[in-house]
Structure formats: C-alpha cells, structure tokens
C-alpha cells in the first residue's frame, strides 16, 4: 500500500492542513503533497491568531517547519483558491484535494449599532497584533475605556495583550503602529462581559491565572455564584476569586468581569459611546457601559465574501463526519467542523481525515497520473498573466 503515489493538494496551511500533511506523508511516503496558501507565509492562525507571548503554543510551527525538508511536500505561497485558481482546476490536476481553509470572520453581534466605528472584532485585533499582511490598521485604536464582549480564551488574550507594556509588546514582535494604537491613550478600565455564568464561561483556568502577572491592575467580578474562594466549588470561580483577592490597592488600571449579561444595543453618533446589556436570568434588568472602544470576541463564522463555501460543495455522497465532501474532495479543521477547538483538536481531526482518505484510496491503482504540483505553477502563472 505504501507504494501509492497520489498527487495531493491541501488548500490552507494552518494547523489542520499541516497536521494532515504529516499524517498523509507518513501513510504514503511516496505521495506528492502541495500545500497552497493565499498568504506568503504558512501556518494560519497558529501564527496570526495565537497570542505572540505564548511561545510554547507557537512552537508547534517548528514541528511543521520540518515538513518542508521532505522533497515530497511543497509549500505553494500566494495562491488563493477560488480567485487565482479554481477548485475545479485543482481537482482536474490532483488525485486528492483537501480544503483546510479555516473560518476567519469575526461573528457579528447582530444588534443595533454593531457597525459603528470603535466596534472591532477580536479576530481583526489579533491579526493586527500578529502583523497579518492583509489586515490594515486604518481606524484602529483603543481608548481608555475598553469593553470586551465575550469571555473565551481569545477575550482573555485581548485583556492580557492590551495591558502589556509597549516595551514588552515590542519584544514579542508586535508592529510599532499597533503598539501606538493600543497605548497612545492609556487604558484605564477594561470591562469584560459575557452571557454565561462564570462556571460555564469558555475561558481556561490557566488563562485567568496568567492575568495575575500583569502589573498595576486591579480586578473585580460581579455575577459569581459564590461569595469567596472558600465556597467556590468551581475552579473557574476560584481562579477569579484569587485574581480579585490578590489585586493591589491603588492600581491605576481596572479589569471588571461581568457574568450573565447579553448585549442589546450599541449607541453612539460618530462612534460608539454606550452599550446596553440585559441580564440573562432577569431580562428586565439592564447594565449600561459608557465606552470608547468595543472588542467583540464571540467567535468566528464564514466570511461574507468567502471564495470557498463548504455547504455549496456537498453532494449526495458527502459525509462531513469523516471529512468527505465528494469523490476525491475532503475537508479538515475549522472548515470541516466549525470555528471551535484548539490546535491539538485539529491534530485529532487531521488523523481522522487522513485515515478516511487512505481507506478510500487503498484499493486504487490509478493514482499519481495527474500532473500535481507542476499544474499549480502553470495555472497560477496563467491567471496572473
């Protein structure tokens, strides 16, 4: 079986595409794998999403670096599938095509005022912080009163990074104009508001514990189910209690957690100035924040202008559970299962899809005759000329 030499094109070089290449080349050492990306540099959100101060998490990209020393695996930069080459062209030229393009658009609040200047998505903010080549800093700045909607790990990343000193941000490679946009008006208060109770909130305990390392910050929390750490049975509540209890008096910056509120309206004339929330369990109760900057961190969705859409590629043979879209066409990672889960979850996903591909193809003896990687060059240069 290991003699199979299929030509494989993986579209997207984020964690799911790279893990899949690792598994496939192990199964089929003689396969010819091309990983194309619309960007000049591989690794997707491992590079443009993961916080730049989380060096340990970033290290996974060094694992992926090893792929490129295998002569049978090739990175093809600057090709956007659906724009520079069509999916049909790829399928005509590769035995197997796998879509690993992720989901990048910040999910919108879908309430009145969510398009006002001063309201920005966390995906965009983290792309800016990470120097994403296609993201512009126009109109982006953070004032002194920041409101974050959402309480997942990305929201906590934003709290930590926006309260990190300019010198340290510089040291971890954040672009100078973004440091300026964060720090030109010093942040005085961050309110971080979520729908869930604290124990149901999406952040990991370690992420909240890490906030204790910030200097000159005092923490508060409202909407907890327990009064003190002593009667908190939930580890997330305990971690929040610790943060609050260990806050230093006299700190000039405040971070306030609010649990159990959902936003109902954003108001402002030229830009955002006020956000209203209603209590989840007592809807008539409202909470009003005066703010100059709102960062939404409530997840991701398919872009309005996505060049490839999963649901349009399904046919009667599709089995998304195992990554099959149609004969020879597969999907993996966030594009397959939705914008949930960490980098390791994509490894599990990639293993599963790799197994499903190798099973589907194990009895085929007609593989390896499609042109493969030469075709990309030809198609790409044809589209650019």
């Amino acid at each position, binding site marked *: 079986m290991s003699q199979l030499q299929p030509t494989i094109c993986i579209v997207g070089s984020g964690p799911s595409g790279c893990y899949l290449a690792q598994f496939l080349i192990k199964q089929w050492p003689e396969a010819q794998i091309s990983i194309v990306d619309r960007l000049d540099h591989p690794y997707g959100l491992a590079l443009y999403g993961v916080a730049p101060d989380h060096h*340990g998490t*970033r*290290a*996974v990209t060094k*694992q992926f670096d*090893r792929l490129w020393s295998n002569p049978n695996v090739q990175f093809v930069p600057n090709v956007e599938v659906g724009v520079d080459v069509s999916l049909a062209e790829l399928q005509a030229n590769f035995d197997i095509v796998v879509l690993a393009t992720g989901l990048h658009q910040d999910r919108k609040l879908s309430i009145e005022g969510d398009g006002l200047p001063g309201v920005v998505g966390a995906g965009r903010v983290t792309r800016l912080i990470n120097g994403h080549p296609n993201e512009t800093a126009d109109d982006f700045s953070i004032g002194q009163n920041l409101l974050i909607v959402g309480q997942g790990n990305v929201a906590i990343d934003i709290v930590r990074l926006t309260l990190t000193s300019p010198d340290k941000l510089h040291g971890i490679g954040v672009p100078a104009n973004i440091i300026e946009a964060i720090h030109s008006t010093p942040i005085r208060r961050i309110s971080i508001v979520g729908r869930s109770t604290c124990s149901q909130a999406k952040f990991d*305990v370690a992420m909240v*514990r890490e906030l204790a390392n910030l200097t000159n910050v005092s923490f508060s929390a409202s909407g907890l189910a327990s009064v003190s750490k002593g009667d908190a049975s939930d580890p997330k509540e305990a971690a929040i209690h610790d943060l609050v209890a260990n806050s230093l008096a006299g700190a000039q910056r405040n971070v306030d957690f609010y649990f159990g509120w959902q936003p109902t309206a954003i108001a402002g004339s030229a830009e955002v100035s006020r956000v209203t929330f209603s209590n989840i369990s007592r809807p008539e109760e409202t909470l009003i924040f005066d703010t100059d900057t709102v960062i939404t961190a409530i997840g991701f969705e398919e872009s309005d202008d996505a060049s490839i859409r999963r649901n349009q590629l399904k046919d009667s043979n599709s089995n998304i559970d195992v990554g099959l879209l149609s004969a020879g066409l597969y999907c993996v990672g966030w594009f397959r299962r939705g914008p949930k889960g960490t980098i*390791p979850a994509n490894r599990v996903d990639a293993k599963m899809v790799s197994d499903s591909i190798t099973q589907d193809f194990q009895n085929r003896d007609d593989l390896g005759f499609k042109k493969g990687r030469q075709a990309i060059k030809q198609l790409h240069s044809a589209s650019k000329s």
Partner: protein
Amino acid sequence: MSKDIVILFGTESGNAEFAAEDMAAAIESDAEVTVVDMTDFDVSEFSADVFYVLISSTHGEGEVPSGARPFIEALNSNAPDLSGVEFAVFGLGDSTYEHYSRGSEIIEEKLRSLGATRIGLYGRHDASDGSLPNDAAVEWVKDLFATL
C-alpha cells in the same frame, strides 16, 4: 544496549511524537527501536526483555495529554505486574504553567507503583522559550544509552 527499545510517546499537539521519532533515529544504529503511541499500546505487552523510553507532555492543569489517557486508564484498571520492567522518562512541559511537567510524572509514578524500575536521569524540556523538545530529547537519549 542489548535489549530492544520501545519509545512510547504521549502527546496532545504532536511535539512528543516528533521528538520520539528524532530520538529513535539517533539510537537506531545501536539497537532495535520502535516508536509507539501510548494510545495504541497494549499494557499487557510490557516485557522485562524490552527497555522502554517514555516521553510525554503535560496538558490541562498539570494532567497527562489526551494521547496518554487510555494508557493511564488501562494501567489503572488492568494493574499489570511490571516487576523487572525497566524504563526511562523524558517529560515535556512549559514552566509558565503552575504544574510544570507534571504529566510525565503521573505516568512515571504509575509505572513504579506497578513494580517497574526507572533508570537514568529524568529528562525534561521547557517549552516556555518557544523551542521544540527535539534537540534536548536527542541529547538526553544519547547520554542515557552511553551510560547504560
């Protein structure tokens, strides 16, 4: 090394597997080496005729990685008698977390409690500087077998 060597890795994001493969490449000229995922390992196959090199990361709040969970569960429920079994351990972790490198220690303690004997220095890698464990693991395994 006269015994055959099995390198057992427990991983979440793949670093331990990657380092296990590099360790195997570094010692395979001197011994018969196989690399096995802890998830796929049958704990009733532990043998005193084989030397085991365990490499595992730490995830969650100082827990074993998901790739080591079935292994630990099988050791717990089957409780095989491991007397005579010899092993060495290399732990992956990140010292910015509260429970540094705890995952491999949980496995190490379990194996010893079942009668196995740990040999050599306890190897460790700290990912807090953004490095991969591969180089440190290869150095460690070479030193280990140079002294055995």
